[in-house]
């Protein structure tokens, strides 16, 4: 049975109308889809990497991730320029996946590096503050050269700058400052330690003199005075037992034995009180003059002149005393030993002409020094 023409026409129109959306859906479905989710994930991962400071603490991975993301975007834009059905987003997808992976790695590495750096820098700051503290403790009154003090001072300033940067979370700057500070502080500390070690090479002699002085005090049941230069102590013994202990101030250049007049050093050796000066006879309250230079000092001075280690014009020092007017907090004498006036009163009272006065670098060895 054949349909009538108008009916056929209506069916045809309906069929076409139904086919149009189908064709549109088909056309849309056939369009290759870009990997927008993957690109989005890569972008988020990159953004997280930035907030994790991967651009600073995982530079290479971050750079790679960024380059891969840029490649994904450039390729996507290139594909967009092609006819809609001829686009191929495989490369874009590949770059985006790689970018996300690298960015995640960069984030992780950066977080780890930041944690490690935090621990590392904290440790270094503590270590350098400890060295600075030891320098203060061991060498604040040790006559290091102005050059060494300048290096120590610069090292301390850099350490301060490193601490400021560290507190702000700027670990990269802190690390640079720490490296510079460490070089200056450790080198200066090592140099000072070597200098001190060299000074302490005389320790066996010092020990011998100190032991002999205490032994004689015990044997003679008399007073002996011991001066420990390093610990800045004046120890008064009676019958071999320590009776008094006072803080002393020394020559401004106290490290080492006195070699010549005007060197600012306090001599080391076994001496005796040769004269007592009461009030009005000395400008330093009261004083005990010792027999420096003794025969040993004179012989050493002559040898140095002969060897040429001292200039021919050099003169041997003299007038070394234990006197008052101390308590100033610094080493200020020309080689004498200064006590406070009240302490000097005690020492002056117990001392008489002939009282032994032994001056040593230290009564304890270098490794026994308190840190």
């Amino acid at each position, binding site marked *: 049975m054949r349909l009538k023409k108008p009916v056929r026409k209506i069916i045809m129109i309906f069929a076409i109308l139904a086919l149009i959306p189908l064709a549109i859906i088909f056309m849309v479905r056939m369009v290759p889809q870009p990997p927008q989710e993957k690109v989005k994930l890569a972008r988020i991962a990159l953004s997280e990497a930035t907030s994790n400071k991967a651009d600073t603490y995982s530079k290479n991975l971050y750079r790679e991730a960024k380059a891969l993301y840029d490649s994904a975007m450039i390729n996507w834009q290139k*594909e967009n320029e092609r006819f809609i059905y001829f686009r191929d987003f495989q490369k874009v997808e590949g770059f985006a996946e790689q970018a996300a992976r690298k960015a995640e790695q960069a984030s992780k590495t950066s977080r780890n590096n930041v944690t490690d750096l935090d621990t590392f820098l904290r440790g270094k700051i503590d270590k350098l503050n400890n060295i600075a503290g030891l320098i203060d403790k061991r060498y604040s009154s040790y006559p290091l050269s102005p050059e060494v003090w300048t290096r120590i001072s610069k090292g301390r300033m850099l350490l301060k700058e490193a601490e400021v940067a560290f507190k702000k979370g*700027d670990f990269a700057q802190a690390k640079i400052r720490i490296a510079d500070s460490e070089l200056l502080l450790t080198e200066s500390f090592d140099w000072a330690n070597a200098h001190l070690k060299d000074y302490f090479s005389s320790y066996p002699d010092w020990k011998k003199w100190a032991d002999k002085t205490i032994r004689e005090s015990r044997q003679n049941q008399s007073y002996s005075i011991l001066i420990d230069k390093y610990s800045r102590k004046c120890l008064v013994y009676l019958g071999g037992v320590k009776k008094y202990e006072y803080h002393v101030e020394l020559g401004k250049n106290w490290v080492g034995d006195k070699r010549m007049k005007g060197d600012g050093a306090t001599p080391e050796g076994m001496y005796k009180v040769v004269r007592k000066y009461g009030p009005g006879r000395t400008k330093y309250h009261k004083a005990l003059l010792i027999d420096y230079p003794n025969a040993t000092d004179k012989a050493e001075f002559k040898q140095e002149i002969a060897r040429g280690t001292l200039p021919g014009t050099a003169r041997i020092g003299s007038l070394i005393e234990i006197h008052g007017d101390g308590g100033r907090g610094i080493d200020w004498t020309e080689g004498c030993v200064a006590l406070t006036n009240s302490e000097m009163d005690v020492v002056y009272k117990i001392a008489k002409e002939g009282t032994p006065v032994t001056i040593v670098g230290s009564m304890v060895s270098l490794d026994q020094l308190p840190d």
Partner: protein
Amino acid sequence: MKNKVLMGLAVIAMVAVLTSCGKKPQAEIDAATAAIEAAKTAEAAVYVPAEFAAVQDSLNAALAAITEKESKLFKNFKGETAKLANVITLANTVTANAATKKEEVKAEAANLMTAIKAVIEENGKLIPKLPRGKEGAAVIEQIKADAATVDASVVEAQGLYDKGSFMDALNKIKAAKEKADGLNAEVKEVLTKARIKF
């Protein structure tokens, strides 16, 4: 036959209209990029780094959304244009915040610079009062070395300040100020112990 041809043309025309109804908002992209550049020039990365990173993120997201739209058969950039407008507003805020922060840092550095100069001046007056004849004493050498280091640091900080590197100048001057204050306390302690009036 004539009807069929007309129908076909209508479909093609419809597709053509739908696929070309949106144009890439290039002007807005350029404006947003310029706004970010302005923020960069205002040193937003130094003074407001988190805000700057956020606005850069927003631009990247907007650009990715535009590329995504460009892949589509039917394009409409209305949403992306709005996003770009938002980026521009955000970038302008970041630029303004960076300028404000920079001024704050500049003022703080300038204040510290004035304060440290006063401490240095006082130290300069106090150091010569340290016990006479003790120029070789270790403590004096230390104080002198510290004073010279502080002076050098202030000169460096001033150089950074003059160059406009206010953040670097501030970091340097902060450390120098701590040191100068410490030195001042140390000198006063020595003078007090030595019973010298200051």
